[in-house]
């Protein structure tokens, strides 16, 4: 049996890797969309506190 660079087994492995890759990418995208929907449905601002001061998020003390 001649040794071929591309065996049928490589195709099967590629299909598996491609499938898992696409499934994970799709899942991440969907979770991102879900997060946006959930956060915006709360009605508040979409940005949160970070290590930098964000004056627009702090309440004004009268």
């Amino acid at each position, binding site marked *: 049996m001649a040794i071929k660079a591309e065996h049928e*087994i490589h195709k*099967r*492995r590629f*299909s*598996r890797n*491609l*499938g*898992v890759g696409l499934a994970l990418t799709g899942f991440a995208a*969907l979770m991102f*969309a*879900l997060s946006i*929907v*959930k956060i915006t*449905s709360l009605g508040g601002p979409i940005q949160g506190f970070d290590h930098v001061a964000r004056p627009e998020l702090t309440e004004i003390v009268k």
Partner: protein
Amino acid sequence: MTDTNASAFQHEAGFGDYFALLKPRVMSLVIFTAFVGLLVAPVSVHPVIGLCSILFIAIGAGASGALNMWWDADIDAVMKRTANRPVPAGRVTADEALAIGLALSVMSVVFLALAANILAAGLLAFTIFFYAVIYTMLLKRWTPQNIVIGGAAGAFPPMIGWAVATGGVSLESVLMFALIFMWTPPHFWALALFMKGDYDKARVPMLTVTHGRRVTRNHILVYTVLLVPVAIGLGLTSIGGPVYLAAAVLMNAWFLKGAVDIWRRDETAADADAYRTEKSVFRFSILYLFLHFGMLLVEATLRGFGLGGW
């Protein structure tokens, strides 16, 4: 990996083999009925939340399919209909099926709880448990009533869809459950009548094997008679309407006629025309369920335009 002989590679699975573990054909029915349950509910759901919820319900159903294939690999190998499934065919090991089944079960339940609510997630967890443990491990090989009780697993998805939207259980969602639950026995027993031999060889106690074909014909008629009031009753609830009711009356009359035809025949008559009546009733039963849920969807759409409903 130390084992490098050629035969080990020959059986390496492609992506499709793992996908086949999730029983895509059963999954399509689950997606459809869960989708209808979600859409006919009186509370509207954000499309992204709806899409995610349906996806997780489908993944949960697929996970229970993988667990079923892990446990049943021995009998699947014996039956012609299932011999080519990934585990008995040797493309995926039973351990892999178990790992995928467990991982996807946990993932789907957790994410459904996050995307929708705890009740919907709890119902999904119960469905997976019911199908994988109660049906596959306990009932299937033990009692001829296996498919009657096991049918409950297939009946939960519209109820989960309804719970995603409303966060609760109601008469409507229980009746959608009951419709699939009562439909399952006549559907599968009609199949068992003409799929002779398969279950026999695998020693699965189907009603046709344990109590004979005459008793099975009687059972088909009784369960069909019990199914009719459920299907009609659903039309009188808030999700029904004149369009559904008219279609349901026609389909139930036709299904009942088919069940009576099966009941009146014996094996000589069935053998003579190669189980024509049984096969046509089986085919119609698929259309029957599809159209009932389709009509609920039509009613929901009509309500959007201020039409339909009661």
